[in-house]
């Protein structure tokens, strides 16, 4: 059995292994970093630490966020340092078993293949499992 922290992005439900997640919170003021790759949303001040923020919508090739909507942040640990991922809404922690897991279909876009590990079949829909390291790699 594994536990996932879930969140929504552009209407779809994604999940990250709970052991990798440090915290989930409302987004802070971001300082943009000119000349950085487009997936870099900026830097935030997390209790005195300067944390890199990645816009997951951009990373997954989804449409940009409507400016008015305030994203939420899921802070994960990557290579020993915290990285914050911008998501639309944070969901519940979901527990799933290996039985509901399916590998991604062959029709999945090649660029996204390393990011999506697979999907768990839930009653309400699909939970797409995200590879944290890949997601934060920008």
């Amino acid at each position: 059995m594994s536990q996932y922290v879930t969140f929504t992005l552009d209407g779809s439900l994604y999940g990250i292994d709970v052991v990798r997640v440090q915290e989930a919170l409302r987004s802070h003021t971001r300082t943009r970093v000119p000349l950085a790759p487009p997936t870099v949303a900026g830097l935030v001040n997390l209790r005195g630490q300067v944390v890199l923020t990645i816009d997951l919508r951009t990373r997954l090739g989804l449409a940009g966020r409507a400016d008015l909507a305030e994203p939420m942040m899921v802070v994960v640990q990557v290579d020993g340092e915290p990285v914050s991922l911008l998501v639309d809404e944070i969901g519940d922690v979901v527990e799933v078993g290996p039985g509901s897991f399916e590998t991604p279909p062959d029709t999945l876009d090649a660029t996204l293949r390393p990011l999506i590990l697979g999907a768990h079949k839930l009653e309400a829909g699909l939970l797409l499992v995200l590879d944290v390291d890949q997601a934060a790699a920008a």
Partner: protein
Amino acid sequence: MEDVDEIVREFLVESYENLDQLDRDLVALEESPGSRPLLSSIFRTIHTIKGTSGFLAFGRLERVAHVGENLLVELRDGRRSMDQPTTTVLLRLTDTVREILAAIEADGTEGDVAIDAVVEAVEAVRDGRVVVVAEPVAAAVAAPVALAEPVVVQPAAVITEKPVVPTQPTRVAPPAPAVEHAPDEVGVLRSAADTSIRVDVDLLDALMRQVGELVLARNQISRLASGTDDVDLTRSAQRLNLIAGELQEGVMKTRMQTIEHVWSKMPRIVRDLAAACGREVQLEMTGGDTELDRGLLEAVKDPLTHLVRNAVDHGIEPAEVRLAAGKAARGVLTLRAYHAGGQVVVEVADDGRGIDPERVAAKAVEKGLRTPDQLATVSHAEMLQLLFLPGFSTAESVTNVSGRGVGMDVVRTKVEAIGGTVDVDSTVGSGTVWRLRIPLTLAIMPALTVECAGDLYAVPQVNLLELVALDGQRSGSGIEYVHAAPVYRLRGELLPLVSLASVLGVDEDRPGTSPTEGSSVIAVVQADHQRFGLLVDRVLNTEEIVVKPLSARLKSIGGYAGATVLGDGRVALILDVQAIARRALVGELEQVSSEAARRAHEAAARAAQMEQVLVVGIGGGRRVAMPLASVARLEHVRASQVELVGGREVVQYRGTILPLARLDRVLGAYGDELGEELLVVVYSRAGRSVGLVVHEIVDIVDDDMARHSDIEDHGLVGSTVLGERVTELLDVRTAILAADSAFYDTPATTDELDGLAGPVVHPDLVGAAR
């Protein structure tokens, strides 16, 4: 290391320290063979190693130490004196001890480090089977007048005062005063051990981090307190300010080490290297007590070693070459460290052959790093910068020591990684100076916050020269253009401008304005030797910021040196001024600087059209003109007063000795011999004078420089027509150097000798006195 128990670990730590000391002592002992304190120190160290290794059952170590001790006993009892083979074999011994210690460190046993060769070598020296080669350097080749008091490196903990240096070669240290030092030293040694304490380095790093956080919190509270009327809060905030500041200083001090730590290795390195390359090198080190954060010290160790190796291998010429060039056979390598402007400056200087910019440029073209066109308009200083390109090496042959073409760019990268700069200055034939500038500390530094396109950035104070406010209302607002590059006239000089918004690519956020409009402040910054103006919207204030490292993928962008959290909680990026310079200015800067140089030249030329010159006759009907401005006075001197010193003519003049050059000989005129009275044109600069002997003084006239024509002739810069006669224009510099070849050197020597002797420069003499 888990297998190695506590006692062994202590033994290793202490032994490594002692071995470093041993290296220093052995090299110093070679320089001053009679020094009893050095000998005692060396003996003690070996003895201690022998004893402890016996106790810990390290048989090989014990045997090696024992053999060394036997040799040292002979030295101590006076049955043997310190010479090159003895020093060499003892140094070899210490290397073997290091090898054994490394083996112990690795797995707790001595392994099978070979010791027979070393033992045999020591025995050979003891039995006198090694031929003692006469030390060439111990001969009476008197050193040229020292530029500064050469401080022979003494172990810092042992001798607390600099030995009195007489103004004669210090290599032979008289044994008598040294013995007097002995009782003092022992006392000093003991007390030094009591007043210091070993602290785990990780603990210090943790402390440093916490202090960094404290500074941030302090900034926040200060900001909040200043916005309130609460008197108590303000007062408390002020106290917090003071305390945090002192704590910060204190903790930073714990991390400070003197640069002596790096320099302690140098005598041995230089000695071994000089021997390997067949050079004679005298090492002088000053400023060893300059303190530096230990992290920075670690980072700078390798680059410095590389520079020292380069200087010995490539800079300093072999003795014969030096003698032929009129220099002392022994080259001088000077290491200097000092604080300046919030940075530590470390210089590696040699008096060797210097670096020829033309050769560097040619090599760059040869290696395909630059095209000839690119180098056509480049100044000599910029040519030297080519040395820092990856893949560059001017060594004729790749020696074991250096010249593998991976050198200078790695040095620069390492130094820049810690926020420092590296620079080079060189004169062909005279020598080279490499200068490293390193910030005092990594973590906390003063910076100026600026605003650009709505975001805040921090400009490190060390890069900041001044701020210039632009008057946006006036048309043009002072910004001019060289082709498309904006420049600003700052006190007469052209300053290239860089719009921060453009460099960062954010200027689309201000539509309808060119990059230079909308900005109202120029921050004049400097990176390496490039000065330029950074255009920003607004300047906020200067504050101490805590540098937070950026994640690797942001570091690779290159324009940012880190990030910080400002007092109001916002994150600001810290600008890497060097990187910005490199990004924005390559090519542009060269264009602007050569344009600036051209303009300056024209302006100077226009201003100096008319000049007053002194016209003299040098015999044979030839007339020569020299700028009157350079002449101090005219003198009459009796031919009988002229004396010969070291093959040069001099005359006593105003209490000093005036070197003479006969202009007729300098310019190849062979006219009638001069009579009893000599006419001398005296030229003075910075306390030094030379006299140019001429046949007659003709006139002082105004000279229209536009009418000059060029002449290719030794000692002349051109010719013109004055008073209806063709008159040659003297190359004053050549003439002066003919009289005194060291005239234009920095006048350090004359301070010591003023009033006493004249600055006669000759390799075998230190001066002349009446």
